[in-house]
């Protein structure tokens, strides 16, 4: 039997410098996997890995990414998010109209039903594929531009909350004692209020507007991240490699930065991705209540709020912004679930 592994580096040859797997080599590996996955016989081969076959070195992230690609729902989430990002970036190029331009008098009346020439809408009426809103603006263009606000607000709110929450979680988890009690009781108090209610309060105190809405949603979600970080820090503190560092006299900031933080990153990333979904929903809810984005800025929640009393006569003006919100939230939810499975299968809801 010819030795098919002769040409590949062996695990036993680590004494000699191991040649780095170059890109071309990696590509053939991927190709082989793909071929194996497609053919029925290959599937058997994959289940019983050849013990002599060398697994090319991949980092944690490389592995996680490959895991992610295997989950159908995660791929759907990534594609949905990709489309959304493209829409947000290229909104001015895709949008047929200026989102704030009032088109009344250009063959448009307020709340026109969708008109698509391809589907039999009269050629002499201007095409508005999602209709026009109460002010005679093109709904489709407004929805496209709304992607910018929704994405930026959701991600922004979570980033701020993650930074503050991580700091609180690190201090509480690492120093323990009274710092832990005080900070975590404070988080308990924040968690004792329904998040939307607390957010409404904060916006009422600071005044309505996009920035304040983002700030409010951020504050409300801090406890989640503080708790996640704290729980990993507490378990890491007792681990041998941190104890060893302490015994060696490594400074506390260095331990936190180089040992604790990188190791608490995984649950944090999962939580943050799912958190963006919640944040997008809550910012839309605030805007819906008139506390978030103010007109005339195109934002899905406030677009929906503006036309909510017309739901019986012009349902499309409520329907489409809602679908857009759902698209954004669903993308992050699917991606978050996929990341959880890929990064740490032990993590649970």
């Amino acid at each position, binding site marked *: 039997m010819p030795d098919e592994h002769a040409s590949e580096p062996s695990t036993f040859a680590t004494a000699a410098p191991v040649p780095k797997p170059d890109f071309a080599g990696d590509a053939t590996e991927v190709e082989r996997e793909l071929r194996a996955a497609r053919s029925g016989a290959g599937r058997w081969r994959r289940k019983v890995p050849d013990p002599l076959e060398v697994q090319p070195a991949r980092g944690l992230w490389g592995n996680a990414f490959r895991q992610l690609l295997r989950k159908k729902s995660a791929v759907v989430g990534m594609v949905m998010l990709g489309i959304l990002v493209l829409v947000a970036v290229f909104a001015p190029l895709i949008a047929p109209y200026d989102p704030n331009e009032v088109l009344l008098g250009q063959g448009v009346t307020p709340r026109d039903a969708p008109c698509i020439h391809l589907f039999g809408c009269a050629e002499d009426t201007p095409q508005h594929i999602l209709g026009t809103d109460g002010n005679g603006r093109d709904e489709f263009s407004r929805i496209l531009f709304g992607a910018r606000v929704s994405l930026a607000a959701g991600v922004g709110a979570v980033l701020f909350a993650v930074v503050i929450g991580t700091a609180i979680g690190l201090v509480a988890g690492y120093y323990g004692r009274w710092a832990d009690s005080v900070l975590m009781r404070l988080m308990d108090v924040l968690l*004792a209020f329904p*998040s939307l209610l607390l957010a409404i309060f904060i916006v009422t*105190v600071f005044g309505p507007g996009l920035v304040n809405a983002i700030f409010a949603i951020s504050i409300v979600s801090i406890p989640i991240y503080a708790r996640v970080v704290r729980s990993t820090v507490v378990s890491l503190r007792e681990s041998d490699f941190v104890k060893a560092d302490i015994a060696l006299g490594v400074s506390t900031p260095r331990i936190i930065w180089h040992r604790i933080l990188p190791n608490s990153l995984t649950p944090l990333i999962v939580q943050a991705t799912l958190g963006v979904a919640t944040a997008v929903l809550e910012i839309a*809810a605030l805007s819906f*209540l008139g506390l978030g984005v103010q007109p005339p800025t195109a934002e899905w929640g406030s677009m929906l709020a503006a036309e909510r009393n017309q*739901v*019986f006569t012009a349902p499309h003006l409520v329907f489409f912004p*809602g679908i857009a919100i*759902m698209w954004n939230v669903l993308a992050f939810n699917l991606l978050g679930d996929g990341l959880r499975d890929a990064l740490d299968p032990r993590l649970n809801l």
Partner: protein
Amino acid sequence: MGRFILRRLLTAIPVLLGILAVVFAIARLIPGDPCIAALGERATEEVCNAYNERYGLNRSIPAQFAIYIGDVLQGDLGTSFRFNKPVTDLMIERLPTTIELSVAALTIAVFVGVPLGVISAYRHNSKVDVATMVGANIGVSMPVFWLGLMLQYLFAVQLKDTFLSLPPSGRLDAGMLPEPFWEKWGLPENGVFEFISNLVIVNAILTLNWDAFWSAFTHLILPAVALATIPLAIIARMTRSSLLDVLGLDYVRTARAKGQKERMVVLRHGLRNAMLPVITVIGLSLGALMGGAILTETIFNLSGVGKTLFDAIESRDYTVVQGFTLIIAVAFVLVNMVVDIMYTYLDPRVRSADA
């Protein structure tokens, strides 16, 4: 067990105090002069001084806080500036709406979510499973206010003349004023009776008023479904994943090896043990329900706690804001406590590890 409950009660005290402090602070932080808000723009300085004197608003902040705590402990939540009646009276009037709504929503969520989760786990990776999980993902991603509006459009406009037609807003048909049960039974009026009679469905049953019952029931369906969606999806997902975990355990294999029917294995051995995390999730979804109630009540025009609170914030009705927030937060803490206690009751391991 008794000791555990006591300890759990004691740990809730600092949280409750914190809630009181936050509620008090928030009411002070909301911009706008309460005197102007209550008496109107034309209130003179003299009038305002008298007003502040009367409500203790001219005292120092710590003094106000101390007075506030004392009042709350005596069950006095102040008087609403806007409605000119005690906040407790307002609660007797408004709280039942929200209770009815959230109980209905939670019932739907549990009685649909748990079976869906069980079927998904039992038929793991089948079409039913995939469909349920896709549905659950969409369910958690839906804005409540959008769903509410769409349900209104579907059932009150599109299906208006069919047997599926449902009323889009309110609690009862217009003009319907059902007789409270205490009046019918010749009982004296008091707060508790009034509270119960404001639960329109309960009152309808007590007075055997089936027209009112049907009206209240049909009015409740749409808001309850809208409010139930997110908890339902979460509960279905949690039941599924928890049951899948349990079904892989040794004792389930033993039960199967004993030759027990698969249904018995899943329901008796599996589900019983899988319910623990599900109960936690059910408890936690109460917070989501209360948040959702603000939106749902606004859309379906129900004067419950959520809508009243939102209106009170807009009109700077301090005492109402304080009182209603307090009730919501305290209810939330209490529910979590009950969940914790139930958890220990159901799983003795938690008890021994904690005691």
